[in-house]
């Protein structure tokens, strides 16, 4: 049973590692960029489309109002040009900024990056976004053309839509989650979330309330330590009770003190032990690895 669990654990870690790409700065540090998932990409696109439609709607209202007020048809020209610019340059304009992300992408915490680690150039941004025109509108066009011309049978239309969809959904079929446009522009979309620096829970507050023996500390590895850290930081009483009970059962201790005191002491001593080992070049990934 434990062997199967160890296997499952190793598998989940491997799948997480699959999303990480080596990205070495000139200083020689690997930034370990993480490829953004397709769900995040789709969410960002939806947000952007909604924003574009909203902006277009407001713009149309303003133009209508000005048009009626001035009785001049120059507003139609402004409207047509404005709509064209909005549609074509929304993505390009935002991705050329210093954060290389549209509002949708910012919301999802992702950004565009040049695949070769160099800087993101304007031509790459333009190329990746002009291809978007094709990816977004070709399936729609296929439906439109098919519906407009009776000569095209339903099956032909379906084939056309399917063909164009494989193009639009290209990012689902490769492990780097590249759109057709990313492929051609040489870009990636990676995670770029901001992470607040949380307080160091290993030092604040009083010293260790209770002491654990070496045998009691040797049952867990780094993975369990960091899960424990997550639970401690979330400060959820029910999760803490559950975790505390599991640890107590595992090391054979009776319930004698508050959960948070118990967990915090255990966390500190486990962390100190594992870090000490780390300094000696021994990294124990999880509880299944040998001590």
């Amino acid at each position, binding site marked *: 049973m434990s062997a199967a669990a160890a296997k499952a654990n190793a598998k989940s870690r491997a799948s997480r590692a699959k999303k990480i790409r080596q990205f070495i*700065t000139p*200083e020689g540090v690997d930034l370990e960029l993480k490829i953004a998932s397709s769900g995040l990409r789709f969410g960002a696109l939806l947000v952007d489309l909604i924003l574009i439609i909203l902006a277009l709607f407001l713009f149309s209202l303003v133009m209508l109002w000005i048009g009626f007020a001035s009785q001049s048809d120059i507003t139609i020209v402004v409207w*047509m040009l404005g709509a064209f610019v909005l549609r074509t340059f929304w993505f390009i304009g935002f991705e050329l900024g210093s954060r290389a992300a549209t509002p949708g992408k910012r919301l999802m915490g992702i950004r565009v990056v040049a695949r070769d680690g160099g800087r993101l150039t304007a031509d790459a941004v333009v190329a990746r976004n002009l291809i978007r025109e094709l990816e977004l509108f070709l399936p729609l066009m296929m439906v439109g053309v098919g519906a407009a011309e009776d000569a095209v049978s339903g099956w032909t239309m379906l084939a056309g839509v399917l063909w164009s969809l494989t193009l639009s959904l290209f990012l689902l079929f490769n492990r780097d989650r590249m759109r*057709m446009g990313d492929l051609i522009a040489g870009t990636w979309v990676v995670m770029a979330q*901001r992470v607040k620096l949380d307080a160091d829970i290993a030092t604040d507050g009083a010293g260790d309330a209770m002491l654990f023996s070496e045998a009691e500390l040797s049952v867990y590895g780094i993975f369990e330590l960091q899960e424990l850290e997550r639970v401690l930081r979330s400060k959820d009483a029910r999760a803490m009770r559950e975790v505390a009970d599991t640890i107590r059962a595992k090391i054979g201790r009776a319930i004698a003190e508050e959960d948070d005191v118990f967990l915090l002491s255990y966390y500190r001593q486990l*962390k100190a032990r594992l870090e000490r080992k780390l300094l000696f070049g021994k990294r124990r990934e999880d509880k299944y690895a040998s001590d």
Partner: protein
Amino acid sequence: MIPAAPPARALDAPSFSASRFRAEREADWIAFDLLLTKLEKKGAKALTSDELLQLPLLYRATLSSLSIARATSLDKALLDHLKALSIRGYFLVYGVRETRWNRVRRFFLYDWPAAVRSVWKETIIISLIILLGAITSYSLVASNPEWYYNFVGEDMAGGRDPRATREFLQSTLGHGKAAGEGESGLHIFATYLFTHNSRVSIMSFALGFAFGVPTMMLEYYQGIGLGAMMAVFAGKGLGFDFGGWLFIHGTTELFAAALSGAAGLRIGAAVVFPGARSRLQAASHAGRTAGKVMIGVILMLFMAGLLEGFGRQLITDTMLRYGIGTLMLLFWIGYYYIPRREDVT
């Protein structure tokens, strides 16, 4: 020869701890974070020279902290924060090396013409394809006018077909009084032409990755429509006038169409024949060149729309139309293909 062992002093040296490491370095990280936020919000101009000097120092300090933390600390919150901060810093420090204005200037002076020059082979191929399309349909329609209806759709022809009278055809060229819409609608017409043509060009570029085949088909089709139309007008003895009607904006517009096709074809060719590089590398390299060409194409189409909407409707003299068209063609050829000094560097 072996160096003496370090003195036993190491025993009473302070022991290293992750918490002490953090306490020592935290001030740097906070300062770097604040600096980055300022840089993102207000740009490099808002930084004082002191802050600018601090930026690379703090960046390197943060990267070094990340390396140390990875080797010594198991605090996930700390590791995640340092990694996110380093990524943010890396892209800001190494991201932009030029001002926006400089980039625009370099694009017009150098990058745009250089990109167009580098796709000269593809431009010739696409031009020949358009020409081939035009010749095909011209000869077919000239020998049998019935062909015309296969090439040009009803709505696009607008009555300009082999059955139309000479007077009507002439009127569509803007010589007669029956020129249809009044001059007030011109700018709307020009804008419509511009947005429509831009979209077609973007498509013909974007379809290029499918080995360039759809691109070539699209361009061939453009030539077909042109040739068929020309055959109809030439059949009624209006070939010269039609030429002028087309020439005034056509040199710019067809040039732009050929360039957008060439940009698409460049990508298709890179995918099929990547050479010594991997297919992905070749495609992304071609994509960047093509991206530059495409910005130029959209600008050219904007000019063409102006010429078509205003120039053609306001200038009705055929010779003048030819003159303007030739001038535009010479301008583009000169702009793109005359070598300049930056080429050497």
